[in-house]
């Protein structure tokens, strides 16, 4: 149910590193949907959702990057005050902890999406579904 894969890349905090990642994906014709960088001094982790996860993962791996795949949820946020509150409150009420989240807006679909990493992905998907929050599927992310 609605769980998608995020690609995470280990990266040294140095000029040009991000460019190598971007070039690798661009050469393989992989499109980035959403991206965030978490940095911790000398190194950081890039997290991204792309249109073709398998291909993205493969080309990065072959390019010599340290990559891993992580389960995340892509949740649609209603474009009204309290849109985010509804989501995080539901998770809190159900005792589900959020590790991190990042948002993006899609021009074509005119929607705001929140990529969510939680400690219990399946249950989070279930409780959000029950409160009427829409969760995007893999195919939707591909076709946005």
């Amino acid at each position, binding site marked *: 149910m609605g769980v998608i894969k*995020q690609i*995470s890349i*280990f*990266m*040294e905090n140095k000029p040009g*590193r991000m460019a190598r990642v971007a070039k690798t994906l661009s050469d393989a014709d992989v499109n980035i949907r959403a991206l965030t960088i*978490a940095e*911790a001094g*000398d*190194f*950081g*982790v890039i*997290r991204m959702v792309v249109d073709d996860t398998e291909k993205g993962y493969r080309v990065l*791996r072959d390019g*010599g*990057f*340290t*990559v*891993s795949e*992580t389960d995340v949820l892509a949740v649609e946020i209603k474009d009204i005050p309290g849109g985010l509150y509804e989501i995080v409150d539901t998770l809190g009420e159900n005792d589900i902890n959020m*590790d991190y989240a990042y948002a993006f807006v899609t021009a074509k679909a005119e929607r705001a999406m929140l990529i969510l990493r939680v400690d219990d992905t399946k249950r989070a998907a279930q409780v959000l579904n029950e409160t009427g929050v829409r969760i995007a599927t893999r195919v939707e992310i591909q076709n946005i």
Partner: protein
Amino acid sequence: MFKYWNPNIERMPIEDLHKLQEDRLRSVVRFVYAHSDFYRQRFEEVGVVPEDIKELSDITKLPFTTKIDLRNTYPTGMFCLPGDWVVRYHVSSGTTGKPTVVGYTQGDVDMWTDSLARALTSIGLGRGDVIQVGYGYGLFTGGLGLHYGAEKIGATVLPIGAGNTERQIELMQDLGSTAIACTPSYFLHINEVAQKMGVSIRDDTKLKAGIFGAEPWSDETRRRIEEATGIKAYDIYGASEMSGPLFTECHLQNGIHIWADLFLIEAIDPKTGEHVEDGERGELVVTTLDKWAFPLIRYRMGDLTIVNNEPCECGRTHPRIMRILGRTDDMIIVRGINVFPSQVESVLMRIPEVGDNYQIIVDRKGPLDVMTVKVEVTESTFSDKISDLMTLSKMVGKELKNVLNITAEVELVEPGTIPRSMGKAQRVIDNRKV
């Protein structure tokens, strides 16, 4: 499995071996005194003549020689026979100073070959084996030394030399190499490239033994190599001044057998020059007993090791040196504390989350030395969580502190970013201008 190349010599009773050494020591001392101005002058400086050397313990009366002597007498000032006796030269690369030249008579080459024939037989190699020689050929002694030793025991030699890694892997498969000789860091690189090519050394090749040396390496690296590839990893020792690679462990992997009929070894305190107690770490000192174009008297190798005079369970009575713990000139002093790269290596190789390559960088920031250890994050353990990576970095730092007693900064780097080498790996970069 208990195979010997020359059982009479290799299992000779210790008393007989000592008598043989004594005879040969007297001969070589007389020989260098008669044939070399360099040695005669050195002997005169300390007031010793060949007649003073009667038994083995008299060796301490003789002066030490060092690499500096070899450089100062460049090119052939320490040779003891005229050029027409010499059938071959080898020349060291001189990365740490002026190049040094060594020379061999035909008999010296035969001695070298025989030493390796004994060694290779002791790890169970022989006729029917295919030995891939991945040490450099040419002026470096590694390639040609192993080559002759391997041919002598009737094995098939694949003289590929260093480098050309993908070809190494293809030929290893196509020609069924059963053993490879190269530096341990290069073998780890070969394994890395093989994985990328979709080749498993364990399942897709016949490789069963690796003969690794020319740089210090640790038991932890041995375990890592053996677990990753299913081969047995053997330590080999030698130096161009002694001939080249000469000695290996036997199949029991418990110390390197030094052929006592060919070389007389001592372990000394590098500061005082006195013999260390049995079982203590000391600098290896070598006197050649059957080498004539370029003999050595009490040559200080600069390698730190422990000499074990107990006979081995394999039946060989010759002394063993335990793993080389480092070189006196590899040692770095950080904030007044001695650090050997091999200590850092043994800490890192115990930590599975850390890759096979590492580098130590020493800088001076203001009055303080700062040691940074770079390690590669392996894909199998990368979890996407920053906190896991921070924990790993802290854990490595803590382990290093436990063993070295100094704080090291740990830098996690991307795999493949620490330079790989085909020969000796450069593990230490010292940026201090002292």
